[in-house]
C-alpha cells in the first residue's frame, strides 16, 4: 500500500515537474520571431533550464477563444500595444508580476500593468530614389502629387499611423493631434486616395518600394534598415517619425505563468533587448540596452532621431479602437 502511494506521489510530482519545465512563446513568425528566439528564448533556456516552445502566428481571435474556453495554450504572446490595452480592458490578460520582471529600466511609454515592451519602432517616410526626383522631407510631401507624382503606399489596417500622418500633413501641430479629427483626416486622404497602394505586411511594404511599384510610402524603420542593408536604392526621412510598439503579454489563465514571468524578465533585460535590436533593426524598450550595442547600430535607432519625433498615443487608440476601425474600413471600402 505504502509503495503504491509513494509511486503515485512520485508520478504526480514527475508530471507537475515536467510541466514546470516548459512554456510556449507565440509571435508573428518569420525572421522577427527567429530573432526573438535567438535573443531571448535560447539564453533563457540555457540559464533556467525551462524549454521554450515556439508557436504562431499570433492571432487575436485565437487568443480570445482560448481564454474564453479556459484552455490557454499560449504563455507569452507578442501583440500590438493598442490591442494589449484593449485586451486588458476585456479581461483577457494576466497582470505582470513586477517582482520577477524588473520595471525600472523599461521605457515607460511602452509598458503598463498587463504588458511589457517587446520592441518599438518608428514609421518613417521612405522612397525609391529611382522613381522620385527630389527629396521628400515631410508627410505633407506625401500628399503633394504635383511635386511628387507617383503611387504612395500606406499601412492597410486600422492602426496608429496613417490618420496621424494625414492630420500632420494637413497642418495640425503635433501636440494637438489628439483627440483625432477623423473627418479631417479622411478628407485629406481622399485627395490622394486613387494614388494609394496599401501594404498589409512588412515584406509587402519592402517589395513595393524596392520594385518601384510605389514611389514612396510609410514604412517601419526596421524594414527600411533591411532595404538599405541589401543595397536597395532607397531614401529615408526621419522627420516627423511616429513611434509605436509591440508588447509581450500573458493571457489570462496561462498554464505556465511563473515560467512566463521569468521569460519576460529575460526578454526585457538590457542584454536581451540589445541582441534583438541588433538582429532586427527595431529599437529596444530597455533604456540601458543602448550601452551594450555597437555605435553604428545605435545611430540607426529611432532613439537617435528624437527631433521632431512624435509618439503615437496608444492609449487613445485602445479607447477608441472599435469606432476608428469601423470608420476606417468604411472609408476604405468606398
Amino acid at each position, binding site marked *: 500500500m505504502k509503495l503504491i502511494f509513494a509511486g503515485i506521489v512520485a508520478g504526480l510530482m514527475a508530471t507537475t515537474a515536467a510541466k514546470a519545465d516548459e512554456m510556449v512563446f507565440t509571435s508573428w513568425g518569420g525572421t522577427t520571431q527567429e530573432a526573438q528566439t535567438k535573443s531571448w528564448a535560447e539564453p533563457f533556456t540555457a540559464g533556467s533550464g525551462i524549454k521554450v516552445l515556439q508557436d504562431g502566428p499570433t*492571432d*487575436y*481571435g485565437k487568443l*480570445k477563444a482560448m481564454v474564453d474556453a479556459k484552455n490557454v495554450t499560449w504563455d507569452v504572446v507578442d501583440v500590438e500595444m493598442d490591442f494589449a490595452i*484593449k485586451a486588458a480592458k*476585456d479581461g483577457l490578460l494576466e497582470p505582470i508580476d513586477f517582482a520577477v520582471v524588473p520595471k525600472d529600466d523599461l521605457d515607460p511609454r511602452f509598458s503598463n500593468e498587463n504588458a511589457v515592451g517587446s520592441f518599438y519602432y518608428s514609421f518613417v517616410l521612405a522612397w525609391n530614389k529611382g522613381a522620385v526626383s527630389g527629396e521628400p522631407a515631410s508627410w505633407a510631401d506625401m500628399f503633394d502629387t504635383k511635386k511628387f507624382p507617383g*503611387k504612395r503606399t500606406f499601412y*492597410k*489596417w*486600422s492602426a496608429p499611423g496613417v490618420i496621424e500622418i494625414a492630420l500632420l500633413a494637413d497642418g495640425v501641430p503635433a501636440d494637438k493631434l489628439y483627440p483625432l479629427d477623423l473627418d479631417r483626416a479622411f478628407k485629406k486622404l481622399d485627395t490622394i486616395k486613387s494614388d494609394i*497602394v*496599401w501594404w*498589409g505586411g512588412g515584406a509587402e511594404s519592402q*517589395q513595393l518600394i524596392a*520594385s*518601384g*511599384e510605389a514611389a514612396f510610402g510609410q514604412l517601419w524603420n526596421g524594414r527600411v534598415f533591411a532595404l538599405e542593408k541589401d543595397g536597395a536604392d532607397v531614401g529615408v526621412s526621419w522627420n516627423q517619425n511616429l513611434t509605436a510598439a509591440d508588447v509581450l503579454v500573458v493571457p489570462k489563465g496561462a498554464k505556465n505563468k511563473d515560467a512566463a514571468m521569468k521569460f519576460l524578465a529575460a526578454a526585457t533585460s538590457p542584454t536581451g533587448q540589445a541582441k534583438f535590436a541588433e538582429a532586427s533593426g527595431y529599437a529596444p524598450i530597455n533604456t540601458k540596452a543602448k550601452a551594450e550595442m555597437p555605435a553604428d547600430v545605435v545611430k540607426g535607432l529611432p532613439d537617435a532621431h528624437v527631433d521632431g519625433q512624435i509618439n503615437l498615443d496608444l492609449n487613445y487608440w485602445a479607447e477608441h*479602437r*472599435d469606432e476608428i*476601425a*469601423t470608420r476606417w*474600413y*468604411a472609408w*476604405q*471600402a*468606398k
Partner: protein
Amino acid sequence: MSVEAQQGIATPRIPAGLGGLLPALILIGLFFVVPVLALLLRSVTDPAPGLQNYAALLGDGTYARVFFNTFLVAFVVTIVTVLVAFPVAWMLAIMPPAFASILFGIIILSMWTNLLTRTYAWMVLLQRTGVINRALMGAGIIDQPLPLINNLTGVTIGMVYIMLPFMILPLVGTLRAIDPMTLRAAALCGAGPLAAFRRILLPLSLPGIAAGGLMVFVMSLGYFVTPALLGGTSNMMLAEMIAQMIQSLLNWGLGSAAAFILLVVTMALYALQLRLVGARRRAGGA
C-alpha cells in the same frame, strides 16, 4: 421494384440509401452544425440579447456595399470560368490519351503550388512594374501600364486561375459520358454543328456545368486570400470583412451576424438553383 428486391436479396429496413448518409451526417452534425450554431447564437446574444447586430449591419451602407460586391465578383468569376473551362474540357474529353495526360498533368501541377505562393506570383506579374505590363510595353502594344491589380480585374484573373481546375474536371467527366452517337445521329438527320451544339451538346453538359459552377460560385463567395492580396480595398469581399470583425475587432456578435446573413442568402440561391436545374433535369428524363 429495385433489382435487389426482384432477386429476393434482403435489404435492411432503412429508407433506401439513407444508411450511406449516416457517416456524413454524423460528421457534419457533430463537428459543424453544433459548434457553428453555438457561435452564430452570439449574433443575438453578444454583447446583449437582441437583434442590434443585424440592425447595425443592414442599416449600414458599408456592409451592403461589401455584400453586393462579393456576389458581383463571385458571379463574374463563375461566368468567366465557365467560358474558359468549356473549350478546354471539350478538348480534354475527346483528345488522344497522350495529349490528354499532358494537359491533365499541367492542370494538376498548377493546383499543386501553394495557394499563397501562386497568388503572390500573380501580384508580382500583374503590377504596373510587373512582367506582363513590361512585356506589353516592350512590344509596343501599350504605352501606359494597365491597371491589372488592386481592382476587379486583378481579383478576377487571380480567382479564375484558381477556380479553373474545379470547373474543368467535373465538366470533363460529364462530356466524356455523352455518347458520340447522339451527335452523329443528329448530323445524319441534317443538323449543322451550331444546332447540334445548341440542342444536344450544351444541354447534355449542363449537369457538369451546374456542378462546377456551383462549386466555383460558392467558393468565390467565401474566398479570402486572393481577393485580399489582389483586390483593392474598395472591392473588399465579405470573407475579409468578417475576418476583420472576428480577429481584429474581436466583435464576434457582429461577425456571426454577417456570416449568418451570407449563409441564409446563399442557401436561398441554392434552393432557387435546384428548382431551375432540377426541374429541367426531371423534364429531360434522367
